[in-house]
């Protein structure tokens, strides 16, 4: 069964729309800057919560930033789609922070006032997804996936499987995470937050920078297309989730989980490694991830590595949104026959010697684009998007 991508929406530190993101990727302009407030390198979305509320014309104002970012990106992807009784439509969003931005404010205030925080307000992930669903008028299958930094890619995979199983005809899938103190402090405590800008796949990489953002895709079956009349952007042809089973946060030296995910996704897409034209790597810029992912890429592609880049050098690591944002970038690569650069690279990793694309290239025939997303718990996901032949 063919799975069509018919809509995309994205907002990140390099733009609030698909067009703005593409432009920044083309002119190699990063969105990571030193935050005046925290003194850290961050990839912040330019819109404030108030601006988003105004743009969407919302009457309620106490939304989590997760819901707000998600609403905007989901609306861009959804476009002019309409609800019809005969098209079973669902929403799957991914988030790791959920309503954490609001709970942080509450905790800080409660601590300040010496209040008991045990009966605190909620940070349930599911509620942020329900907020997005309400805004788009989607009822029925409303799901949230939370597998840390691979969540967004898993939401896309899950939507594909629901359509394949015949349970849905059309599904809005994606991920969203705002910048929250919790994650910034957390990654800092793990000693993997870079003081300067991140340098993915470089021998001298010093860690990651966090970013925020959201991205959504509309997936449809052929039956749905015949009713909606939507024009397919490309196909989602392969997917897999496999587990590293090595350590809660660290990836194995031989990249076992990542290798399995890529190999199985290729098999699912009925493709060989040599068929892949572009790889958007997970590439966080930490010592451990990039070394493990390099080993996995070598396991899969051998010495014929296709052009690849880590667009986290533009957006920062957007956690649960990353897999969805990078899926949108793969679709843009297919649509525009372009390879996006990896920024801040100078020296290949000694052990694997992989060299990413460092400049924007056009007029390259991109037929199949592969993207990786890995999360805590050894959670490894790979997606493959293909041109409709």
């Amino acid at each position, binding site marked *: 069964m063919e799975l069509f991508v018919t809509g995309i929406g994205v907002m990140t530190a390099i733009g609030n729309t698909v067009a703005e993101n593409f432009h920044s990727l083309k002119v190699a302009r990063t969105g990571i800057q030193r935050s005046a407030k925290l003194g850290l390198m961050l990839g912040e979305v330019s819109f404030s919560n108030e601006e988003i509320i105004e743009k969407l014309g919302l009457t309620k104002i106490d939304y989590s930033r997760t819901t707000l970012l998600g609403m905007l990106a989901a609306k861009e992807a959804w476009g002019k789609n309409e609800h019809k009784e005969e098209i079973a439509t669902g929403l799957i969003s991914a988030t*790791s922070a*959920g309503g954490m931005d609001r*709970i*942080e404010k509450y*905790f*800080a205030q*409660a*601590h300040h006032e010496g209040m008991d*925080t045990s*009966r*605190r*307000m*909620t*940070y*349930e*992930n*599911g*509620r942020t*997804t*329900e907020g997005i*669903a*309400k805004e788009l008028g*989607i*009822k*029925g*299958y*409303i*799901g*949230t*996936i*939370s*597998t*840390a930094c691979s969540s967004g890619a*898993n939401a896309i995979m*899950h939507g594909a*499987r*629901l359509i*394949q*199983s015949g*349970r849905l005809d059309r599904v809005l899938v994606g991920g969203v995470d705002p910048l929250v103190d*919790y994650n910034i*402090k*957390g990654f*800092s*405590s*793990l000693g993997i937050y870079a003081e300067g800008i991140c340098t993915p796949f470089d021998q001298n990489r010093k860690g990651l920078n966090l970013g925020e953002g959201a991205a959504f895709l509309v997936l449809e079956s052929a039956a749905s297309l015949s009713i909606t009349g939507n024009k397919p952007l490309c196909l989602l042809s392969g997917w897999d*989730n*496999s*587990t*590293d*089973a090595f*350590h*809660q*946060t660290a990836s194995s030296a031989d990249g076992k989980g990542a290798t*399995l995910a890529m190999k199985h996704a290729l098999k699912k897409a009925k493709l060989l490694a040599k068929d892949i034209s572009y790889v958007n790597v997970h590439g966080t810029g930490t010592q451990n991830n990039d070394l493990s992912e390099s080993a996995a890429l070598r396991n899969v592609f051998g010495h014929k590595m296709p052009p690849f880049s880590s667009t986290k050098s533009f957006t920062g690591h957007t956690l649960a949104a990353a897999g969805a944002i990078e899926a949108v970038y793969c679709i843009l690569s297919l649509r525009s026959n372009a390879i996006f650069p990896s920024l801040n690279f100078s020296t290949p990793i000694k052990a694997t010697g992989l060299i990413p694309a460092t400049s924007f290239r056009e007029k390259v025939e991109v037929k199949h684009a592969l993207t990786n997303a890995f*999360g*805590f*718990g*050894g*959670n490894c996901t790979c997606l493959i998007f293909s041109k409709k032949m």
Partner: protein
Amino acid sequence: MLSALEPSSEILHPDYTSFIPARTRRRMTDGLKMAAVCAKDCLAQIGLEQPDAIAVGTSMGCSLFTKKFLKKIVSFEGGLLSPTSFMLSTHNTIAGQISLLLGNHQYNMTHTQNTLSFEHALLDGMMHIEEGQNNVLVGAADEREEELYNIKERLHNQDVILTCGASFFILSSHASKTNPIKLVDVKSLGLVENVKLKVLQLLKANDWLAKDIDLILYASSHQTTKKELSELFEVGQLFDYQRVSGLYFTNSAFALNYATDILSRGKHPVEAKSVKKILICNNIIPENLGLMLLEHC
């Protein structure tokens, strides 16, 4: 039959040491330990070493670790923050730790849709069976959440007791010889307006009639669910499972466990009649509806 919970009821803990090695256990809260024990016990029951996929539902994940790290952040006065509670606070810690414990490299998913988290995981597992896998481990776990007091208060539901729990299951492509129970269908529906209509649609889709169902295990935090269900079923067929499970976000996983126990014994928990078909109706949050159909075959 299980007796109803009392305010003085205490949470039972098995001997975790015989299931989980000390090195793994030291990074586990009670919720995590419960989930790990259930998962291992499930596999042991059918003599299976590795499931083909793992899907877990949890509303709050490892909320005890989350709270611990949050408290550290707000009371932070310089120095360093310790990373362990942060590292273990992602929602997929439960599923991830099970994969580590088993050395399992297969599919590993975590669904977090508040009171419907388990139904999502169960549906995920069911799709894996349809896709050709043989044995899938599905389950749910949530820790005791003081936050639920707020929900209780909001929903004016003061009778139900706050608890926590974990339940795991193996879904197989072939019927078990000793315990042949079929999961006929599972549905997870958000922003639902008409519970009765959704139940009828599910029954129709599976060619079931309301009168064929021997027992309806339901959970609700408001009066309307029972009223709507009683328009479809005899009141005597309705059983509020929260009386035995207590309230936690994924207690519908307990209901499935309870239902399989009832079906294997074939006896109604209260009345003297046989039970072959069960509907589980999770409507704890009024606009969220989880439905499961089970049959002894």
